[in-house]
């Protein structure tokens, strides 16, 4: 059983030369953004750094991946080397192979580091390859902006970056489930409508106070209208209350969810081409627990072989 333990692996000069072979001398690791300076003779040609020192939050499949990256002065990458990783997938070791690491040499920082377009991926280890590309992209851009920043003219004339335009409204459309209902909420206006209605009735009755027969008929009509309005509000409240009740663990067992979908297949199951741009609102009943029964034979086999355990739990009780 291999336990991953790779936090304290040391980096030697051979690693730095593998990453930046054009350099003749390297400095000591130092600085707020820790890095090594690379010199050719007396001239600085670039820097080397480790990605987890700058952004330790990028992770692979099961833990962070440490990568040594070399950056030239003209904002291109000289090479990378994967120092350590903690992946437990069988295909993930191929990150350390030469063909995968040599893809990054000579790349400009402004290119999109996308697996499938720029970079060749690895079957069976998509997450690891993607995280390597992400780490190199992010940290290289940070370091280049700090050490070798562009002048203003260069930015606007030779920019190759892909800028994603983001707006919160666009995100709300793309998100499939609408949980911020900022539309017309009648519960806030119910009181106002009722008070307005009562004042109207009082005004009308005041004007008709002399003819008592007509008053009587109008009064009955107003009462009927009141009852209708109150029932309407009650019904609407019952529909909305599912989204506004306090938590009650015992009941209900199902809850409703609003989903904006586009129908993707016929009733028979054939896939539909997306010709219509309309969306539908569907109320779906989702079972909250009892999500699927187990295959008893499979699980008992796995318990025997040792992949699962069959130990009894401490806190439960029998129920009729």
């Amino acid at each position, binding site marked *: *059983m291999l336990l*991953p333990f790779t936090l304290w692996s040391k980096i030697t000069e051979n690693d730095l030369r593998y990453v930046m072979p054009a350099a003749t001398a390297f400095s000591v690791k130092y600085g707020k953004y820790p890095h090594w300076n690379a010199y050719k003779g007396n001239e600085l040609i670039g820097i080397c750094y480790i990605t987890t020192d700058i952004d330790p939050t990028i992770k692979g499949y*099961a833990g962070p991946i440490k990568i040594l990256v070399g950056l030239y002065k003209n904002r291109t990458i000289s090479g990378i080397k994967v120092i350590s990783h903690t992946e437990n997938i069988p295909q993930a070791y191929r990150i350390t192979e030469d063909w995968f690491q040599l893809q990054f040499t000579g790349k400009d920082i402004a290119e999109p580091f996308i697996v499938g377009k720029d970079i060749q991926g690895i079957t069976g280890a998509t997450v690891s390859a993607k995280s390597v590309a992400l780490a190199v992209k992010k940290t290289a851009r940070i370091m280049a902006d700090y050490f070798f920043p562009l002048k203003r003219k260069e930015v606007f004339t030779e920019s190759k970056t892909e800028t994603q335009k983001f707006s919160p409204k666009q995100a709300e459309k793309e998100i499939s489930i609408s949980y911020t209902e900022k539309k017309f909420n009648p519960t806030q206006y119910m009181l106002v409508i009722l008070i307005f209605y009562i004042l109207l009735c009082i005004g009308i009755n005041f004007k008709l106070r002399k003819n008592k027969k007509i008053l009587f008929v109008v009064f009955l009509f107003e009462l009927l209208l009141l009852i209708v309005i109150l029932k309407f509000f009650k019904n609407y409240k019952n529909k909305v209350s599912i989204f506004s009740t306090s*938590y009650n663990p015992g009941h209900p067992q199902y809850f409703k969810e609003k989903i904006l979908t586009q129908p993707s297949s016929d009733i028979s199951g054939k896939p539909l081409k997306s010709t219509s741009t309309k969306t539908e609102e569907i109320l779906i009943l989702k079972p909250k627990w009892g999500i699927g029964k*187990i295959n008893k034979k499979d699980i008992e086999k796995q318990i025997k072989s040792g*992949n*699962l*355990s*069959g130990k009894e739990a401490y*806190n439960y009780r029998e129920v009729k």
Partner: protein
Amino acid sequence: MGKRVQCLLCPFKCILDENQRGICQVRVNLNGKLVSLVYGKPAAVHVDPIEKKPIFHLLPSAKAFSIATFGCNLGCKFCQNWQLSQSKPDENKNYSLNPDEVVRLAKHYNCKSIAYTYSEPVVFYEYTYDTSIIARKNKIKNIFVSAGFINPKPLRKLAKYLDAANIDLKGFTEEYYRNVCFGALKPVLKTLEILAEENVILEITNLIIPTLNDDLKTIKKMCKWIYRNLGPQFPLHFSRFFPMYKLRNLPPTPVGTLINARKVALDVGLYFVYIGNVYTEDGETTFCPNCHRKIVVRYGYNVMKYNITPQGKCKYCGEKIYGVWWKEYGKTI
């Protein structure tokens, strides 16, 4: 008709027929007994620095031997470890480590603490309980990192053997908890109150997501609740959101909102407020609540300065600081 069983671990209180598994995917009704499929079978084993959990007030710069299994009783849409928490143990390979072997390995790697993290330790409750008893006998600390969705009775049993805990207060409205996390808020507030009473070092994290969790008014309400019901000495962590799992359309949070949230929390009166997942100037330093000087300065997972006496007091003014500190800093790693 076979026997029915009700699990009493978390507020969902699933009632299970024969061969049915609960909402956590890990507890099953087999032949009338409730069985956990995951006792002694972790899926992720790693050695981490303690600042990653994040726990800042227990032995900074120590190592933690962290363990996780598959399964979780919530299903948050922004989960970082969704490959671990939203998959089933019978469709994947597991390691096999008994509680004895866990403690033995932690000693072999010179770790001062064992952390139950990555996925949800509430779901492998029996495993944590047994290892924490053995770890306490061998003078190793226990760290509990979870969302806090658990009933009070099993929590009180566990809290006797815990040394530190980090609990996620993901939001402060019932709607957010129901729609984004598929859980509820009240049980989480109860767990915070219980852990504050026991002898456990409590730290609270809040993940700030743009357009969902962004409102500074609710953040102020949350800080006021913490100040009144728990106390000002419990540290608060505001961490940055990166697009994951089912929320890949949203951007990462801008650093300005985190800084504003930290200002709001400090104005309310909390002593220790931190910012995580980002490099900021003072986001990871602890300031003394009395003399306002920098006591512990951190940069990522490294500790740059450490100015606390072995009795747990500030080096400059002598104020006692909440936490468990080193007696001989520098000799142990």
